[in-house]
C-alpha cells in the first residue's frame, strides 16, 4: 500500500504511539497506507520517503500528521483535573475502517445484545430519543441527552439503572463518551477512543479514560473497558462493507442512529475519502 492522496485525511492529527512505551529501538507502524518509523526520541519519519512528520504530544500519546493540520489538537477539560484516575487501556488492532469503529462507539442500540449483562440487558432494548448535532463553532459532532438502561454501568456499580451519556466526535478518527459518574453525580467520567488509521480497512485503537473512581483497582478499570472493547471488535470486523458508506441511501438508519447520521454527514461535508466507500471507488 502507498500513502493516501486524500488531503482531508493527510491534514489530521493521529495518535501513533503511547509515550510510556518507546524502547531503545525505533518502532515501525503504518499510517494512512504508509510505513512510518517512530524514533526513541519521539521523532516520526516516513519509511517510504524519509521525510519527517509533524508531531505533538498530549495525554501520554504521540500524535503525527503527514500534512498541515489546520488547528491544534482539541481540548479535553477533564484531562486537566488532577484528582482523576487516568487509565490508558492499550492498543488493539482491528480489521476495519477506523470510521466504522467510531460509528460503533456512538451506537447505543447494540448494548443489550453485544455487551449483555454489562452495558445492557434484554428486554431493556429501547434507545430513548436523544439529540445529535454538528456544532459549527467548534466543528465537532455531539449527541446529547442520551439515556440507556444498563445493568452494570461502571466498574464500581453492581445494580442496573439508567445512565446519562453524552457523545462527542472532536475529529474524524476520535470519539468520546461522557458519562454521569455513578459515585459523584455532579461530575462526568470522560472516555476517549483514538484511532490510528493504518490502511483503509485496518486500524489500531487506544481508549483513554479519566475517571472519578476511588475504589476500583487499576486492573479492574482496565478489565471493564477491554472486555467491552473486545466484544465490539468482533462486531465491527464483521460489518460489510469494511469501509464506511457516506451515501445517505446506502444503508437505512433508524431514529436510534441519529448520531451516526450526523457523523456521516459531517464526514461527507469535509470531503473525507480515506476509510469510506468513496475511498474504495477512488482507488479502483
Amino acid at each position, binding site marked *: 500500500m502507498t500513502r493516501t492522496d486524500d488531503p482531508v485525511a493527510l491534514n489530521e492529527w493521529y495518535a501513533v504511539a503511547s509515550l510510556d*512505551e518507546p524502547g531503545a529501538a525505533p518502532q515501525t507502524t503504518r499510517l494512512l497506507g504508509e510505513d512510518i518509523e517512530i524514533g526513541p526520541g519521539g521523532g516520526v519519519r516516513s519509511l517510504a520517503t524519509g521525510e519527517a512528520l509533524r508531531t505533538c504530544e498530549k495525554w501520554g500519546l504521540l500524535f503525527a500528521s503527514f500534512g498541515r493540520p489546520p488547528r491544534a489538537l482539541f481540548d479535553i477539560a477533564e484531562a486537566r483535573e488532577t484528582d482523576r484516575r487516568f487509565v490508558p487501556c492499550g*492498543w*488493539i488492532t482491528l480489521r476495519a475502517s477506523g470510521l466504522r469503529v467510531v460509528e460503533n462507539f456512538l451506537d447505543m442500540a447494540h448494548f443489550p*445484545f453485544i455487551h449483555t449483562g454489562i452495558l445492557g440487558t434484554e428486554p431493556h432494548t429501547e434507545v430513548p430519543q436523544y439529540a445529535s448535532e454538528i456544532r459549527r463553532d467548534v466543528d465537532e459532532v455531539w449527541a446529547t441527552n442520551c439515556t440507556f438502561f444498563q445493568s452494570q454501568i461502571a466498574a464500581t456499580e453492581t445494580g442496573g439503572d439508567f445512565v446519562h451519556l453524552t457523545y462527542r466526535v472532536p475529529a474524524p478518527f476520535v470519539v468520546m463518551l461522557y458519562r454521569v459518574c455513578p459515585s459523584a453525580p455532579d461530575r462526568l467520567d470522560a472516555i476517549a477512543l483514538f484511532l490510528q488509521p493504518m490502511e483503509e480497512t485496518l486500524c489500531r485503537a487506544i481508549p483513554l479514560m479519566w475517571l472519578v473512581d476511588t475504589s476500583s483497582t487499576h486492573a479492574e478499570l482496565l478489565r471493564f473497558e*477491554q472486555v467491552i472493547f473486545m466484544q465490539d471488535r468482533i462486531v465491527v470486523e464483521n460489518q460489510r462493507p469494511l469501509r464506511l458508506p457516506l451515501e445517505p441511501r446506502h444503508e437505512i438508519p433508524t431514529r436510534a442512529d441519529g448520531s451516526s447520521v450526523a457523523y456521516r454527514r459531517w464526514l461527507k461535508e469535509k470531503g473525507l475519502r480515506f476509510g469510506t466507500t468513496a475511498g474504495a471507488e477512488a482507488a479502483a
Partner: protein
Amino acid sequence: MTRPVLWNYDLDDASYTVRLMASLAGVDVDLRAVDVYPGAEHHSPGYLARHPLGRVPLLEDGVVQLRQVPAMLTHLARTGPRGTGFLPADPVGTAAVEDWLAFAFRDWLALSAARSASIFGDGVDLDPLRAAAIAALRVAEDRLVAQSLLGSGFVAGSAASVADIALFPGFALSRDSNIDHDAFPALRNWARRIRALEGFVTMPGIPDYH
C-alpha cells in the same frame, strides 16, 4: 471451604479455557484480574513471586498451586461436582484424551499465536501465522469427521472431555484472526455441542448468539 483462586486476564484465551472448564465442572472460582496488557503486571515482582514463569493463568486451590493449563483442566474435572464426565475412566478413552490434550497445547497453539498478533500486533505479517493455524484446524476437522463416522461427537469419544474444552477456545476465537468457520463444518457442529453443555460460558470475541 475457601474457593479456588484464578489469577487471569479476560482477553487471554488460556485464561478463558480454565474459566470455561471451571464453569462446566461446577467449580466456583474467585477471579483476580491481572493487568497483562498494557500494564505487564504478570512480569511484576509481586506476580513473579507466585508464578516465576510470568504467565496467566495461575490456579490456587488450597495447597495446590498450578501453573500449567492442562493440569488445571484435569484438576477442575477431578474436583468439580459435574467434572468427572470430562475424564474417561477406561484406558482407551484416557489414551485418546491425553493425545488430544497434548495436541491442544502444542500444534493448536498456532491459533493462539495468530490471534495475539491480530489483536496486539502492529503490522506484523499475519499470513504465516494464519497458515499454521489453518493447518491445525484441518487436523482437528479431519478427526471430528472420522469420529462422526464412529458415532462419536467429540475428539476423544462420545462425551466432551478435557481435550475438547482445551480445543474449544482456539476454534471459537479464530474469527479474531479473520479465519472464518465456514471451511470447518465438523468443527462448527462440535462447537455447537460444546455450547449446549451445562455451565457453558463465553468470553469477549465469542458471541453469545451463534
